[in-house]
């Protein structure tokens, strides 16, 4: 067979253009998730806890991506995430159980509700800034939590709300976790692509300018009002959709879940991973939620002493923030870069060893 150099080159160029495409990593991540699910369906012995951990982590990635636009791009710290996610869970819970609304209508209502909530919080953020905003949104989250506890008609109070199933075209269907996992993975891919497009668009650059200096951004003609509103609306839409998915995957929601600790964990995931990079957020979410759910729960030592895994998580957060302020993704990037340069050097030396040095 004749080795056709031209075709080979063309193939290589094509592969490179796919490999360097910004969505490549997202698709690979989604395919990995789907592979775990299909392996389970096909009969490979994947522990159910690991599968659930991956599903939950994907939901948290969706929520954290919205938060990263808020914190990493707009520079607004919010502690209200838990309340917003809770609203999402109760919207689907109440509407399916009591009204029998179709899931598509529920998604639409959720998005509209999220836009309204986001606009309210965005309006608040125009007057209050920095640490104050974080605490005020915490107050808002507390108000929502009180509503979850006391509005027993909608939320079943402190006993928690069970989801009966999902209504598709006027038909109540029992929840199939495998199907929801697949939908979730595809939806996560969609959200990742959407977020990347927001980040790399003029909107993202305007948000970054606002984060770095508000006065300078205003001087360049960026409307603070518009972009703050936008950042909060995006974050709340992601959070409420995350809530809808959480409810349809776990099918149980209780007010104590939507407490300060949840908001702090999302914040920790974004900070630990690196607040401006999508891969960073994926990494951070795995560190904060996935590691605990998927890895530590499999090791007998940590199952026997659940307290130690909490300590480990806390210590990890502290160490990462003190020694790698840019997030874990920066550590990964620098390590990969160093390895690449080392491999290049090694290859060059090897060539010199075989063929002799150029300089002679």
């Amino acid at each position, binding site marked *: 067979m004749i080795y056709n150099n031209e075709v080979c080159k063309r193939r290589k160029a094509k592969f490179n253009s796919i490999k360097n495409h910004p969505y490549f990593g997202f698709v690979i991540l989604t395919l990995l998730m789907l592979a775990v699910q299909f392996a389970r369906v096909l009969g490979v012995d994947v522990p159910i806890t690991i599968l659930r951990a991956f599903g939950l982590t994907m939901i948290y990635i969706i929520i954290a991506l919205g938060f990263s636009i808020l914190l990493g791009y707009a520079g607004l710290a919010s502690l209200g995430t838990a309340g917003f996610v809770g609203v999402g869970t109760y919207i689907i819970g109440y509407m399916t159980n009591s009204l029998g609304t179709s899931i598509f209508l529920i998604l639409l209502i959720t998005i509209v509700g999220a836009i309204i909530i986001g606009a309210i919080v965005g309006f608040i953020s125009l007057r209050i800034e920095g640490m104050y905003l974080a605490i005020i949104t*915490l107050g808002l989250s507390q108000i929502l939590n009180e509503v979850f506890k006391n509005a027993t008609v909608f939320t079943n109070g402190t006993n928690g709300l069970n989801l009966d199933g999902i209504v598709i075209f006027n038909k109540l269907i029992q929840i199939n976790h495998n199907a929801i996992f697949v939908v979730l993975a595809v939806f996560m891919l969609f959200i990742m692509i959407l977020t990347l497009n927001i980040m790399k668009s003029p909107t993202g650059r305007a948000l970054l300018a606002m984060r770095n200096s508000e006065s300078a951004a205003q001087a360049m003609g960026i409307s603070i009002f518009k972009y703050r509103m936008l950042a909060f609306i995006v974050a709340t839409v992601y959070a409420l959709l995350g809530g809808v998915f959480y409810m349809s995957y776990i099918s149980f929601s209780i007010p104590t879940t939507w407490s300060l600790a949840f908001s702090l964990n999302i914040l920790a995931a974004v900070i630990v991973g690196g607040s401006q990079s999508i891969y960073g957020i994926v990494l951070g979410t795995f560190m904060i939620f996935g590691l605990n759910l998927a890895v530590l729960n499999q090791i007998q030592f940590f199952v026997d002493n659940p307290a130690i895994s909490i300590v480990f998580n806390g210590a990890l*957060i502290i160490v990462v923030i003190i020694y790698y302020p840019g997030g874990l993704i920066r550590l990964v990037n620098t390590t990969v870069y160093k390895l690449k340069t080392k491999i290049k050097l090694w290859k060059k030396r090897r060539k010199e060893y075989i063929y002799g040095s150029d300089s002679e």
Partner: protein
Amino acid sequence: MPNTEGFWELVILFVLVLVVVFFLINTLILRKLKNKSKIQSILINVFLALGLLFLFYRIHQIFPEEFNPTGIMLQSIVNSVVNSCVLALATTGIVLIFKTSNTTNFSQGMIATVGAYVAATFILSFATELVELGNFTIVFLAMIVGAVTAFILGILIDVLIIRRAKVITSVGKQMITMGLVLVFAGSIPLVFGTIPLPIPKLSYAPNISFTLFGNLLSITSHGFYSLIISITLLVVLFSALRFTKWGLGVRATASSEVVAGMMGVNTRIITAMSWGIAGLLGGVAAVILTPSITIAGVSMMVPTQVNGFMAAILGSFSSFAGPLVASILIPILNGLLSFVVGLWKNAVVYLIILIIVLVKPMGLFGKKIAKKV
């Protein structure tokens, strides 16, 4: 017993009237004055006070005459004394740390919880040997032990962790304190066991009765002693802030850490001491709080923590007196509103705080700091 029909209509109407009057005054009179913003700020405070007074008046009104409404209101204020003390101590700690380290300390509650656990363990192990000293002395000794532990813990946290994080943004520091919460939440069961520990009340003497404005009121002896201890601590702390070199250092560090350092203030010791004292205040608060929730658990201080943040926002982080006033006000409002809205009292209180902060973003007593661009 109270008849709450038509309660909120009048309150909201009154608030709306206040808003309209404020806008009229603002547009017609204040426009021509020179120091407009100062008068505006005072005016808003006066109007807010009027609104709150009207709220109290309405609560007073809804009780039927035969129940002696003034007495019930005063009694409910007296009942909230333990909560007010706890919140005042915790909030002062949070504000102290915010001033010197420029971060909101989420681990304040957890440091306090460790103090409470140490105190409870102390009581469990030495109660039989010290039984002749009496209940008050034992609990007081335990309180001192717990507070000193929390003090040392606070200093250790600053020296070992926060000091190394000088360059990190305030959100990053916030996350460090959050990581500390996780570390403590995990290590408390490891050290003290998973069973929550009880702490006895400071005193089991019968309630102390006294007369105020012709109403017979009674305060639990535990509340009375807590009040005395808290007032003593806060008076000592505030006079230290006002009159000692340490207080001057804290105020200098609060206004600018770099400049304070240049002027010869040892900001390291100031910050470490602030963390320690915040821990001490929290420890005392936790020991006072534990009997009213019967046992010391890992998450015992979380509501106090959240309320402390709200009080600090309401009173403004830029002063020490403001958060103190707010932290006394919040439990009183909570107690009074429970007559009107029952279970929804927390939500209503948070909503009121939210609205006040929206009107005055720097808090009730805060000054707007002009920033150089």
